[in-house]
């Protein structure tokens, strides 16, 4: 197993390196980060030249990349166009996004299990058909549209209860009360809407998947035989069917992870979270090479690690993989 993981990890190294160079080159070619400065009346050429020197704009791209990669290996991701060190900046934004995304994945999986298994037990029932249509509509809805809708619902809910329970902007209120309870309530209040948006979209796809997997497992011989042995239905579904039906879901969740991060970009914009999405959009808008590449490096690493984690879960669930 360990060897398998290490091999997977080694496989992903060239992928990350190549993609980081691609992003570096693309952003570097996307334009001059000082262009707006050049256009500002009153800014002297000398000032632009000084800034350009600091940003090494005169060097060829591959040289700049090598220089950056050299220090990146040592954990220094360079500085942004604005002069801020990139590494702490990216980690800060990563924390914000991961909090939202991981919770969304957990909620999404839980929801998918409940809905998927529930509808699989009664295929073609009204509930099943409703679920099928609903998930189809959810999958066809632009994420930002759904986010905007939930935001509106959230505000109306607050106005109904007469105080702000769920928040629509940012990840926490500035300087809330000192008590642990109020801090937790505040954090959760900020998390509800963005997480729900992401989780709903994820759930829509996963629940259909879980439904199909469950139906297949329920028809499998070993489940039939468990039934024949007279095991109670609850135990048949809960232990035998569910466990095996979880295996394909794990794989899907892992492959969808990058897509969820993509969706998070939009959700972050709608809910004004300063996460990875905002960081990337700003970096691209400013042609900020170091930030964009740092973003990619960290995001790709996270995706790789999470995929590995999924492999581990997969192995734990499926005894066939443990001893290849």
């Amino acid at each position, binding site marked *: 197993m360990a060897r398998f993981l290490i091999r997977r990890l080694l496989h992903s190294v060239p992928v990350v390196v190549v993609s980081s160079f691609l992003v570096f080159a693309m952003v570097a070619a996307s334009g001059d980060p000082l262009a707006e400065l*050049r256009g500002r009346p009153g800014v*002297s050429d000398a000032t632009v030249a000084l*800034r350009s020197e600091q940003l090494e704009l005169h060097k060829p791209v591959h040289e700049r990349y090598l220089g950056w990669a050299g220090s990146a290996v040592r954990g220094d991701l360079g500085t942004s166009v604005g002069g801020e060190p990139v590494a702490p900046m990216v980690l800060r934004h990563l924390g914000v996004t991961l909090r939202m995304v991981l919770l969304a994945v957990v909620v999404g999986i839980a929801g998918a299990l409940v809905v998927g298994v529930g509808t699989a037990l009664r295929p073609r029932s009204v509930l099943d058909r409703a679920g099928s249509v609903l998930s189809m509509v959810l999958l066809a809805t632009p994420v930002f549209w759904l986010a905007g809708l939930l935001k509106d619902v959230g505000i109306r809910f607050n106005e109904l209860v007469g105080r702000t329970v769920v928040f*629509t*902007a940012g990840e926490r*209120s500035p300087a809330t009360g000192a008590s642990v309870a109020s801090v937790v309530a505040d954090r959760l209040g900020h998390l509800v809407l963005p997480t729900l948006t992401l989780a709903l979209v994820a759930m829509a796809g996963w629940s259909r998947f879980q439904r199909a997997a469950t139906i297949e497992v329920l028809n499998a011989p070993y489940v039939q035989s468990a039934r024949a042995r007279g095991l109670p239905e609850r135990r048949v579904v809960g232990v035998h069917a569910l466990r095996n039906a979880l295996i394909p879901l794990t794989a899907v969740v892992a492959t969808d992870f990058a897509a969820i991060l993509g969706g998070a970009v939009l959700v972050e914009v*709608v809910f*004004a979270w300063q996460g990875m999405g905002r960081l990337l959009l700003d970096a691209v808008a400013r042609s900020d090479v170091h930030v964009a590449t740092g973003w990619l490096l960290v995001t790709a690493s996270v995706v790789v690690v999470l995929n590995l984690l999924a492999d581990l879960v997969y192995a734990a669930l499926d005894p066939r993989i443990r001893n290849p």
Partner: protein
Amino acid sequence: MVVLALTGACTGSRDSPGAREAARKSADLPGLQAEMEERGDRGRLVYAAEQEPNGFNGSTSRNATIGVKNVTENIFFYAVKARPDSGVDYVGLEREPRPLPDRPQVIEWQIRKDAKWSDATPITVADIQYYFEQVMLKDPAKVSAGNPDGWANDVANRVGYDQITRFTRVDDKTFQAEFEPAYGDFRGMWTDIPQARFMQAQPGGWDTGLNDTPGPSAGPYLFKEWNKGESLVLVRNAEWWGSPKPTLDSIVFRFLPDAASSVAALRNQEVDMIYPQPQVDLVAEVRRLDGVRHSIGFGPTFEHLTFNLKHEQLGDKAVRQAIAWGVDRNRIVQALLRPFSAQAARVDNSVVLLGQRGYEAHGADYHSPNPARARAALEGAGYARGAGGYYEKAGRRLSFRLSTIGGNQLREQQAELMRSQLAEVGIEIRFETLTPRDFFGVHLPSGDFDIANFAWSGGPFPISAAKQVWSTGSGSNYGGYSSPAFDRAAERGARELDRERQLVLANEMDRALWDDLAVLPLYQKPTLLAVRNTFVNISDNPTNEGPFWNAQVWGVRKPS
């Protein structure tokens, strides 16, 4: 660095013996707000800030953003601040700076006697002088092709400071500067100045020393903390030397990068004040909110069309006239601005703007559209109707690119309007949207455009600003305009020390622009300030100062 809002049109002279009282009084009665409402004690205001600072030295090109200025405006030393009525307050000075009677090239400033930093040290000439030295610092090691003079520091704008030939310290609080040539806009100098001692002690110095904290305060508020990506907190400076004293406990800058999310946050009680770029739906949303008041102002930034005068056809004045008669500026205002502001109006002056003292409406010929005259002008210039109803001459159709920055709905909409209006008079418009980088960095400087739609910030110094934009050979003169009349007026205006005569020259400059139709001004950009009713004395200063200009008088509404 320079007060970015001195309109050059200053009200009444305050260099009388009673100058100090007058200056005080103006601070007591902020701007146009005739009376100040009574304030309750304490309170916290949360402001939805669209831009997050990336450091606090607003004089560097990195940090010269409105997001930084909103924070430092109430922290750093300001000799002068602009008022909403386009007058100025010499908030940090004993009296208006003035030329020495015998040597008008030498100006004397006197810092307020009681002015001190929040660490209790006095604000002295040493602070000013250090700032000046840093702005003008040269380092032979930094000489390069792009930087032949070897400027050592990143400075956004040295205008004015680079005309000082000698800086003299008279005493702790008084200094003189000698200018060569004379600098008419000297009244706007010495703003946004950090404490010298603090900056010297920072390893990063001028360029990056203030990246994380601005240091001691000379203003009504103190920097307390900054959670990057979330919020920045200012607290009351109880020791502030000005008056009236601030009463709010704190001002929180909540960083919400998206205007739409800030309106929702206001509605959801998450923030108390927003200042987004207004747009029809945004204003309608704000109007529907309970317990929130709002105001719409028109700032010193104006939309316009710049013509590329080197373009073969656009170089012909008749073609530009046809465009000016074909574009219905009133209708643009009616469609895009009137739905939320009855005061919205077209602007007829590119140098001195509406709402500023000295504004004159020029270009009377073009105040209303006149398609017939447009066509006549074209036909007079030898153009004839060709395929599709578009005019052409010598086989070349009148077909222009209209370049602007993409992703801005307002711009896209006004471009569509102009396209359809100009089609009426037989001129074809092809719409080209660019990223800000390509637009400002590539297309404008290299002259790769026909007609460009963007905004100039005309506010700060009408003469200096307009001179940078339209005088012959100037770097920002993208259209390639060159007029002896304009250059003469601009040159004289820049040296003119008298404010009234400055205004006359500024208007002369604009008349030259209209005579040649180098630029077609459209309208001034609106601003929108919305504040929760529980706060009082907050008003917009639609010069470049924004709403933070008088934060010392803000407060919570006194419970009745």
